[in-house]
């Protein structure tokens, strides 16, 4: 053995922590090496000094008396607790078991078991919710989403599910997708004339750029995109594509037609000053949201005529939704020109008139 090997092990050798074989080799080396022997001697000398270290520790019986008094005090407390109270005794026993579990060096084991049990419980809970038809999707609770009633009232109508999304019922039958409004209003109660009178109030709350909402709607395909981040989008949803009814499309076409007419009429005033189109802009945002859903649904169902109609309508709605609140007449006229070139009002009118008819149901707008 060389000094380089011996020196690092010398303290362990001195402390008697090495195996016999290694100890023998070190002993042999120390007996022949002056340098290592001096280190070893120094350790011995230190230990000799420490072994004579004296502390002032009086050997009296007083400490035991104190300890005994403390023990008796503890015992008195426990017995007073457990005299006539079996539940208290049970509680103390349970606490004792728990304490003994966690005070041992194997405390990690029960902690790990409890952690696993909690995780499994949570997983089972979420899995159960995901499989439960009533819990598969719930309309966002406006209050729990942290929105004030006034804010909620101004939220645009939100489709209950992402484009064509629906939950299976217990029977396995597909539910028709409904349009759910997060606010207090229903879509049908908001006619052009009634809402126009509220234009001033609505205009106050139009602050968010619509392009943001649209991006969320399209990009995330989230049922709560219009609610933004305040809505819990993590709810487990069983997603399938489902059909919207023709009635939904007809209602939508009717509303879009009213919007386009209103927009066209505003531009027909012939004034050269900027036009107040706040109402049309807001209405276009609402209609646009639904238009995207219905267009996608039609595409999924391979209902090409409806998809074409709604696809043609979409850019115009987007233009109106993003128009300045005080728009210039030229800008408005350009959009109106596009509406007329595409014949959108006429197409929507035909759709509205024949929406319930057998020909439309077959997907043809041009028949009859």
């Amino acid at each position: 053995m060389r000094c380089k090997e011996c020196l690092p092990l010398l303290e362990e050798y001195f402390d008697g922590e090495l195996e016999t074989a290694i100890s023998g080799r070190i002993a042999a080396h120390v007996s022949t090496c002056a340098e290592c022997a001096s280190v070893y001697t120094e350790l011995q000398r230190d230990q000799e000094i420490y072994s004579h270290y004296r502390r002032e520790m009086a050997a009296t019986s007083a400490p035991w008396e104190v300890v005994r008094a403390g023990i008796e005090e503890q015992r008195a407390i426990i017995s007073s607790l457990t005299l006539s109270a079996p539940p208290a005794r049970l509680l103390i026993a349970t606490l004792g078991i728990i304490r003994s579990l966690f005070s041992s060096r194997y405390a990690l084991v029960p902690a790990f078991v409890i952690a696993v049990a909690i995780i499994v419980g949570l997983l089972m809970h979420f899995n159960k919710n995901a499989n439960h038809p009533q819990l598969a999707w719930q309309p966002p609770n406006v209050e729990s989403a942290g929105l004030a009633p006034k804010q909620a009232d101004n939220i645009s109508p939100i489709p209950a599910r992402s484009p064509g999304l629906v939950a299976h019922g217990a029977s396995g039958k597909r539910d028709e997708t409904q349009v759910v409004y997060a606010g207090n209003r229903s879509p049908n109660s908001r006619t052009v004339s009634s809402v126009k009178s509220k234009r001033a109030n609505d205009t106050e709350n139009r602050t968010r750029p619509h392009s943001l909402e649209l991006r969320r709607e399209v990009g995330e395909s989230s049922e709560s995109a219009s609610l933004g981040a305040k809505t819990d989008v993590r709810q487990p949803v069983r997603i399938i594509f489902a059909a919207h009814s023709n009635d939904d499309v007809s209602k939508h076409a009717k509303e879009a037609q009213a919007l386009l007419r209103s927009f066209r009429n505003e531009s027909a005033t012939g004034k050269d000053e900027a036009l107040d189109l706040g109402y049309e802009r807001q209405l276009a945002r609402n209609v646009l949201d639904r238009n995207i859903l219905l267009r996608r649904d039609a595409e999924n169902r391979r209902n090409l005529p409806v998809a074409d109609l709604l696809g043609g309508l979409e850019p115009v709605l987007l233009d109106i939704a993003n128009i300045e609140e005080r728009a210039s007449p030229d800008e408005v006229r350009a959009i109106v020109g596009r509406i007329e070139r595409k014949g959108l009002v006429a197409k929507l009118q035909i759709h509205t008139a024949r929406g319930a008819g057998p020909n439309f149901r077959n997907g043809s707008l041009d028949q009859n």
Partner: protein
Amino acid sequence: MIKALSIEVFRLSSRSTTSAGALMNGSEELVERVRHGDDEAFRLIFERYHRPIISFVYDLVGERGLAEELAQEAFMRAYKNVNALRDQTKLAVWLFGIAKNVARESLRKRLQQGRKVELDDRTVTRLHDVSLLPDGQLFSKELNRAIHDALATLDQDKRLVFTLKVFQQKSYQEIAEITEFSIAKIKTDLHRARIEMRRLLRPCTEASYEM
């Protein structure tokens, strides 16, 4: 008179025999008896381990009065939690572990209160003034004081490991169980503590050996 004296002698001799017999009891048996509510068994445990425990605590906290209080606290905790002792053969390790926790809690509390941790009140300490070293040299009061002060300068971990190894003669494995440190950390801390202590004591030891 003679009869009375002989009865007294018999009583004393029988008491010492009982005590010696009791001290022969193994840790396992004593622990088992304590679990069944035998306070006498706990007294035997106390007698057996009180001195090393109080010395150990004293080395950690450095105050005699506080060390006594903490040692008592450690024994009371041990009595209260005797059911938590899994391996009854490791009673000593378990007791030292409790004492270490009690001492560390006290030190932490004192640090939180902003008090400087100083070892002992010199006036109370009664040292063995004229202990003789094997080579006949006096183990001076100053050297005792120097060891005491040098210990105080070590950081808590090193002081703990050093005390357990050098003063309590515990093995690395036992120290690991008491402190919950790894063996590698114990070796490192012990090595550094030894060097540090040697450096601090050098002036005193050299003077002592020169006498």
